[in-house]
């Protein structure tokens, strides 16, 4: 062995949250017998006794290199820096091995964690040892999800002469961004940025756009995947539909519009929104009268194009051969009804962020005016311009985020979109009072802090303290909260409350992870290869992730990841080969590769 130094390993258990995590005892027994390893400890907690036991050992038996392995070993590194210096080594002789960085935190990951530490002991990069078994590949690429990240990735690839299949579940591409009114921090019109890209996708010769389609199954090896895609019956011929809308006018059935976050109704034969791509109608199975009762056919009678609407069309499955896959399935908003204290679903004028986006949007059902929710003639709660406008509005931050009872993580975008809401309310209702209830203002991006400071000066009541509950108070809503800075209990009467709902992994995340041979991360998002250095790669070769499916993300970051994932695919295509990914390798083969690499050094 070339690396015959004496090494010490600290297995840092302090960042384990209990439960069935990596098996530290197995690791301990395994590495204790290594010839290079002179000393090994398990660090259970960071009290004085545990730390001083290890530092005393380090004084008595100095090691050439100290490896600290754990979920977040950086947290405990500081405890041992002094001991290393005192025993004649330097801080740079401490090496950190993070399991979490590679998405390894389950009990069944123990063998892979062992390989990970093994690489560190041998002084070899795990990424290098795990990049092996180059496979031949086809160049066609699949992008799953037609939101802004998927659109960006597809366009980058297509412009680089790569043929792309863009599979989108809903009837249009554009994703969540298409429903927004303005983007922060520049207050640009979201549609003005997005729709040209959507049109470009539709017209690009290198992109096969597959809307209203779902990925059913994936099999094969990295570089040569076969994907089975379900083409849900649209019941309107994509090539002959002229998008005139006559069918929709005649359609007698209605349902809540998904695109409008349920703020208004649409017909059963519909286009999600006027700028949808493709701008072709489709039929919603659930609400169509003909599909339920066998009678109606009003749309068929009205359609000016012969044979364009085929109500009896069936779903079909197609198979695609692709070399690389980019997953950009995005997020779903937190279901505010899970927090009964805020009364969403009980009080009509407690609205979620996506609903409010549609109220602000000039293309929404109220034409960009803020009105109350009211019952229409058929007793459906909708927003329309027939009602009055609110005089006092409150925005509650962190609904479903930073909360141990729901989601522990920060959803990143809510503070900023809430500030944007405050600004837009002031713009649209200059007489209205706006109260923002926040815990901490997280303005983390370029230009964001400046945006916050600007909005602060727009006569908006910024109240530090999340509210605890909303009750009815006659016609109004009564908010109860604590104003942390002035040390006062607040009971505020408002007309409308906007809940800044957080981001959650999409419903299909787990299923898709399973199909792709990936594992879901701790919070339910897709797990990246390395959270620091490889955020778009995954543990499976040829599969990349982009946008909010990897974690809560704003538009600029999603776009950046879309481009980054495309770059990874183009890298494979230029090489003509794709690495297999450590998920498909045995820990033994990684260790063998590490041995070889260590010999070369």
């Amino acid at each position, binding site marked *: 062995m070339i690396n015959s130094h004496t090494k010490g390993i600290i297995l840092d258990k302090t960042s384990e949250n209990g439960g069935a995590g990596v098996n530290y005892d197995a690791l301990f027994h395994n590495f204790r017998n290594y010839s290079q390893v002179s000393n090994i400890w398990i660090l259970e907690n960071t009290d004085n006794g545990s730390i001083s036991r290890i530092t005393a050992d380090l004084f008595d038996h100095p090691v050439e290199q100290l490896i600290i392995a754990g979920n977040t070993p950086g947290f405990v590194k500081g405890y041992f820096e002094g001991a290393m210096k005192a025993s004649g080594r330097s801080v740079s002789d401490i090496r950190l091995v993070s399991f979490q960085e590679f998405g390894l935190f389950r009990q069944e990951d123990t063998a892979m964690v062992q390989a990970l530490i093994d690489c560190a002991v041998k002084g070899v990069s795990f990424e290098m040892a795990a990049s092996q078994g180059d496979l031949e590949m086809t160049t066609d690429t699949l992008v799953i999800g037609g939101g802004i990240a998927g659109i960006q990735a597809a366009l980058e690839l297509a412009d680089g002469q790569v043929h792309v299949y863009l599979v989108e579940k809903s009837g249009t591409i554009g994703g969540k961004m298409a429903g927004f009114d303005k983007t922060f921090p520049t207050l640009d019109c979201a549609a003005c940025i997005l729709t040209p890209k959507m049109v470009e996708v539709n017209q690009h010769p290198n992109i096969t756009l597959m809307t209203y389609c779902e990925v059913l199954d994936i099999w094969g090896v990295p570089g040569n995947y076969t994907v089975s895609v379900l083409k849900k019956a649209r019941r309107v011929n994509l090539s002959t539909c002229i998008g005139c809308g006559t069918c929709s006018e005649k359609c007698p059935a209605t349902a809540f519009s998904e695109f409008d976050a349920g703020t208004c109704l649409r017909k059963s034969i519909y286009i999600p929104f006027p700028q949808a791509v493709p701008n072709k109608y489709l039929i919603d199975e659930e609400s169509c009268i003909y599909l339920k009762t066998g009678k109606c056919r009003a749309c068929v009678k009205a359609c000016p194009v012969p044979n364009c609407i085929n109500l009896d069309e069936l779903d079909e499955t197609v198979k695609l051969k692709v070399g690389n896959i980019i997953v950009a399935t995005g997020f779903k908003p937190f279901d505010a009804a899970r927090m009964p*204290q805020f009364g969403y679903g009980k009080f009509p004028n407690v609205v979620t962020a996506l609903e409010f986006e549609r109220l602000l949007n000039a293309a929404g059902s109220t034409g960009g005016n803020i009105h109350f929710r009211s019952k229409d003639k058929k007793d459906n709660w909708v927003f329309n311009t027939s009602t009055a406008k609110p005089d006092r509005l409150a925005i509650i931050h962190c609904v479903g985020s930073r909360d*141990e*009872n729901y989601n522990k993580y920060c959803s990143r975008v809510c503070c900023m979109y809430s500030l944007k809401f405050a600004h837009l309310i002031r713009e649209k209702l200059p007489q209205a009072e706006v109260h923002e209830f926040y*815990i901490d203002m997280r303005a983390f991006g370029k230009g964001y802090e400046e945006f916050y400071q600007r909005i602060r000066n727009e006569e908006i009541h910024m109240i530090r303290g999340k509210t605890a509950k909303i009750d009815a108070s006659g016609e109004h809503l009564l908010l*109860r909260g604590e104003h942390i800075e002035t*040390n006062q*209990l607040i009971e505020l009467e408002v007309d409308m409350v906007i809940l800044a709902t957080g981001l959650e992994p999409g419903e299909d995340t787990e299923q898709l992870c399973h199909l792709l041979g990936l594992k879901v991360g701790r919070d339910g998002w897709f797990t990246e290869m390395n959270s620091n250095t490889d955020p778009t790669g995954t543990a499976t070769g040829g599969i990349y992730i982009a946008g909010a499916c990897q974690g809560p993300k704003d538009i600029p970051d999603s776009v950046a990841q879309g481009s980054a994932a495309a770059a990874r695919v183009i890298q494979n295509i230029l090489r003509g080969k794709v690495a297999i990914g450590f998920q498909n390798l045995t820990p033994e083969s990684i260790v063998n590769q590490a041995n070889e690499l260590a010999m070369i050094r």
Partner: protein
Amino acid sequence: MNRIDPNLTRDLRKFGIRDWNDCYHCGTCTATCPLTAQGFLFPRKEIRLMQMGLKGPISTSVEPWLCYYCGECSERCPRKANPGELMMSLRRYLTSLYDWTGLSGKFYTSKIWELGFIIFFALLVILAFILILPPLDTTLTDQGGVKINSFAPPDLVEYFDWAMAFLVASLLVSNIFRMYLRVIWTGTKQRISLVEHVREFWHLVFNFSVQPKFSKCEDRSYWLYHWLLMSGYTIMFILIVVFLPWFQTENIFPAWHPQRVLGYYATIGLLVGLGAAIIGRIRKKEIKFEFSHVSDWLFLIMLSLTVITGILIHIFRVNGMPWATYISYIAHMAILVPMILIEVPFSKWSHLAYRPFAVYFARLKKSTMHQSR
């Protein structure tokens, strides 16, 4: 001038507090609390004081006693920081601060002290019985009951009761006075007139007898359980300390006689209240029962044993079983005496005085707030 006490962390931890650094000050707990009010905000403010190490404001605060631990704040807390349990621990800490003997702190933080004290006094009681015991009369009364008054003469027992009551009351009253000095003299800048003291006094009586604040919590059943327990105990206490010759009789009255009705009510009230608390602490379904300090369990166990031995005395006496009656009587006293000595002035039971007095002091404080406006 408030000084930061770096040792506060260490001191508070001994009273059952785990960690208060989880709190990120969103104010959910305070706004959820049905009892918090302007001027007396809790629990977040108290957690802030703990985090900052401000021993001064903590020791003069009355807020921990205004919390009845319904647990709603802990349920809603987005950080699972358990604000309700932090308030409970603060009450233990404050009890030890009010106590001038220093025994309270010892009992709360050391099991050896607490158990040692109990065992010592239990043995003392048993020894006293053995030493001063008159010759045992095992003959029965005409009704077939035990001649209990020959074993424990009521007038003698009552003298002892009075002595105990005087000792415990003087300890408790001196501690309440220390609480008053902290909360009112140190805690408020203005002096409060005697008229104000008299005017607000009925709050003390009202809160002592009804605990109206407890009933504001979302689940009112525990207010009822607690009230049954409290009223049961109060009746029993008055019967034993004031009316012992009337209560401890050899004559077996019919079941509808006030002596037996009152005794039965008190027993049932105690059993229902104790049962609810014990079952709750075992099941741990509600947050308020999730964490049990040694002192919480010890109080429940000792009170239960007192009630059970009391019931046994009654059963054995009525059914004419002299030996069993006498042994139960000794056991009853051997548990009751250390329980009263330890719990009422020094430990969990002192809340019977601190809570209503806290409401009274809070009213007094509030009157100064109005004046300053």
